């Protein structure tokens, strides 16, 4: 192994790809889930709740009319 005696011109860069990939995927997916949940709980759920409340109100009004 003649080359072992020569000092490497670059420091070894193994492992950087994997570490970077895991870090980037975590950040990317983390951001995604944060904004996805923001959409789900900030927009979707209030709409669904408002709709359900509206139909509950309608149902109660209907029941009250039929009760009389």
């Amino acid at each position, binding site marked *: 192994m003649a080359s072992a005696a020569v000092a490497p011109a*670059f420091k070894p*860069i193994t492992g950087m*790809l994997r570490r*970077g990939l895991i870090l*980037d*995927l975590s*950040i*990317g*997916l983390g*951001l*995604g*889930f944060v*904004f*996805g949940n923001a*959409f*789900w709980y900030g927009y*979707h759920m209030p709409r669904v709740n408002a*709709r359900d409340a*509206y*139909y509950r109100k*309608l149902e109660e009004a209907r029941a009250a009319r039929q009760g009389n």
Partner: protein
Amino acid sequence: MFFLINKLVMNFDAPSPWGIYFQDSATPQMEGLNELHDNIMYYLVVILFAVGWILLSIVINYVSTKSPISHKYLNHGTLIELIWTITPAVILILIAFPSFKLLYLMDEVSDPSMSVLAEGHQWYWSYQYPDFLDSNDQFIEFDSYIVPESDLDEGGLRMLEVDNRVVLPELTHVRFIITAGDVIHSFAAPALGIKCDAYPGRLNQVSVFINREGVFYGQCSEICGILHSSMPIVIESVSLEKFLIWLKEQ
């Protein structure tokens, strides 16, 4: 002023200026479509940020001035290619299942209590209620033309109002039978989650179960000539009692 009253007091199921989301749903199928859309939107936001971040990271970290040799290791990678092929496939399958379920559910015409025939013409819709007879023992039948802007009542919706509305009872399974007299049209009402092409010489059907009272606006949705934009659809959903009164008036 009337515009403000409309906004605050009256619930028009019609497009709103600058609106980018769905109209409020009025049928189970539109609720299903809403739910499916929001579910997919969730996945979509996650993917958007994951892909966006990685793209940004690659652009920043592997720019040639910064890391001249790094591309050497990025020419080929069987494992990562498998991952980025199989993962989207799995996500697509996850989206496809609820989508198909909803599609077939909406196709079902379950035991309708009444039918309405809608026929598209250049450029108006005509309707027939084949289950009911009018005072002359004829099927209830009428044409539905747009109300031109010059004749609009105050607060009326431009390019959406018609002279004769389709009146339907709420909480009733109604079947629309859809056809056309001349060219292809499309019968659509966003709040009801229906859109069905109207072909000359062919009968299509969609079923609706409107779960509240309201006035639902739609438009012809297949380009059918110069006044394609001037043949709107207005469906008025009323209580059964009011529907019977309306029937008696015909």
